[in-house]
């Protein structure tokens, strides 16, 4: 009897010892799965909350919410066109200025810089990405904007005044320095570190032997870059540019500081305007009722635009991983 019970006791003990981690195992696996699903839930939660919050505005104004130019808090009429146009035009300006700068920086860092110089310069460019956007805003408002007004807006306005087309686009009615163009330029500096460091990583991944064989048959650096490196990395560079675009579209604080927050549509890039993000940042805390719904509705528009851009970007850069 005694021997048997001891036997059972022993097996029971080893059983509990072994069973414990095994029972914990599926629990742990389920916990990691739940955490992963949280990520999914968050993104779809953001999507759902934007649609839910913006729904009253969409229902009240229909398509006019996207095409209307009135933003009238007195009569509760909201049209998002000026903000949507402002968002797209600042992002476009940022791309036009930022993309050549970023690609140039990436080429310098991978092809031209001396080996000992690559690391400090590369780190400096990456640190530019770590600077918070509110700091760019303060730099923009207090340092860049006055210089921009005095050295660019005033002379350019006096030159282009009266000219057809150019005169409309570049004439500043009140050369305060605030406006779509200033915001676009600040955004350009903000996206350079992102596009540049991604592009650098992609250029670094191209096998050295390709480059060396091109140099070997007597190509100049320009020819190597143009005919070997860019075609090789092409698609992923476009992906990196799209990622930069996604950032430029949604950037808030820096733009809010320098864009002037005007609610009207203007043909000139020198005039104050607003973007979706800057409109939300500057009005949301005082907004009530329909105005708040309209602002969330604008957020919904921004969400879907950036979502599409980022999905395309991620598909294109899927070969390269970065933070």
């Amino acid at each position, binding site marked *: 009897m005694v021997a048997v019970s001891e036997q059972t006791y022993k097996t029971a003990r080893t059983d509990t010892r072994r069973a414990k981690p095994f029972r914990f195992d599926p629990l742990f696996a389920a916990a990691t799965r739940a955490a992963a699903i949280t990520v999914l839930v968050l993104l779809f939660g953001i999507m759902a909350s934007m649609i839910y919050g913006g729904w009253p505005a969409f229902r009240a104004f229909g398509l006019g919410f996207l095409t209307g130019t009135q933003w009238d808090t007195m009569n509760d009429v909201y049209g998002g066109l000026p903000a949507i146009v402002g968002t797209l035009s600042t992002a476009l300006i940022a791309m036009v200025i930022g993309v050549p700068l970023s690609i140039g920086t990436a080429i310098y860092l991978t092809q031209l810089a001396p080996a000992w110089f690559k690391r400090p310069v590369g780190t400096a460019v990456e640190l530019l990405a770590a600077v918070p956007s*509110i700091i760019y805003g*303060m730099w923009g408002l207090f340092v860049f904007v006055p210089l921009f007004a005095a050295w660019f807006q005033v002379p350019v306005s006096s030159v282009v005044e009266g000219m057809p087309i150019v005169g409309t686009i570049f004439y500043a009615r009140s050369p305060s320095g605030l406006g779509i163009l200033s915001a676009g330029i600040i955004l350009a500096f903000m996206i*350079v570190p992102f596009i540049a460091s991604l592009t650098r990583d992609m250029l670094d991944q191209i096998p050295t032997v390709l480059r060396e064989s091109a140099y070997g048959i007597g190509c*100049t*650096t*320009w020819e190597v870059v143009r005919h070997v490196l860019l075609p090789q990395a092409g698609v992923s560079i476009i992906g990196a540019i799209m990622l930069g675009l*996604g950032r430029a*579209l949604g950037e808030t604080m820096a733009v809010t*500081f320098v864009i002037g927050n005007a609610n009207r549509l203007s043909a000139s890039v020198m005039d104050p305007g607003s973007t979706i993000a800057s409109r939300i940042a500057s009005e949301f805390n005082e907004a009530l009722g329909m105005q708040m719904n309209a602002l969330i509705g604008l957020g919904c528009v921004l969400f879907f635009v950036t979502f599409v851009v980022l999905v395309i970007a991620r598909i294109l850069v899927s070969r390269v991983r970065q933070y």
Partner: protein
Amino acid sequence: MSDAAITPSAEAEVKWGRVRQSRRIQDRILRVGCTTATALAVFVLFWILGMLLWKGGQGISLDLFTKITPGPGSQGGGLLNAIVGSIVLTFLGIAIATPIGVMAGTFLAEYGKGSKLAELVRFINDILLSAPSILIGLFVYVVLVMPFQGYSGWAGSVALAIIALPVIVRTTEDMLRLVPNGLREAAAALGAPASIVIRQVSWRAAKAGIVTGILLALARIAGETAPLLFTALNNNFWFNWNLTGGISNLPVTIYAFASAPYDNWQQLAWAGALLITGAILVLSIAARALINRK
């Protein structure tokens, strides 16, 4: 990098006299253009840092760390409540994001290899990584501020956690993938079940990398302003651990003070900007050093 040594020496051999003029000019333009672009980017960084040191340095004093934010029109004052509030919000955000992020990253790297779910999560996580932070603020407003009728520190830290989460997921996954499979197999061969292998072997081997990810996430959320505007908001009072009300924090204080008409407010905004940028740059450099040491 051996290629770096090869390429410059190869181009040093080029005899320009035998190269067509137009090719030579093209090449010069590329070199000058790329160098200028890089110089401009580095110049902007130093310009911003210089401006912060110049304008913010004047505002650094003992008062900054011992007095609370001044009311409109009153003299002096400091940023004590904003600094404490920011630290609490940021660390609370990281405390929420770290367990979820590390677990999700573990799922992607260890359990979900090749599964459809893991692929989808990875993709969505990358989207979330670059989603505009103001939308995350709006989301938290709709979910946490509207139903509870008020701005709160909790809402602010949840918003920050949502921004930190994808960074942690991404780095955790990448770092776990760097752990050699032999280690896992050795542990499994000794009879360790999957959860033990992960916790005792994979996590340990990837510890420095995971900590780097958390530091990067910390640097990312420390300066975030947009999501705090509609969640934590701000107040001018001493920090009192009541996370159910508005919490003063550095970024929103800087935003409010920077364009205010009072000299002492502007001075405080610059000092705060210097503090926050300094902290973020130190964190980023520390994260870099940690990962490079390995």
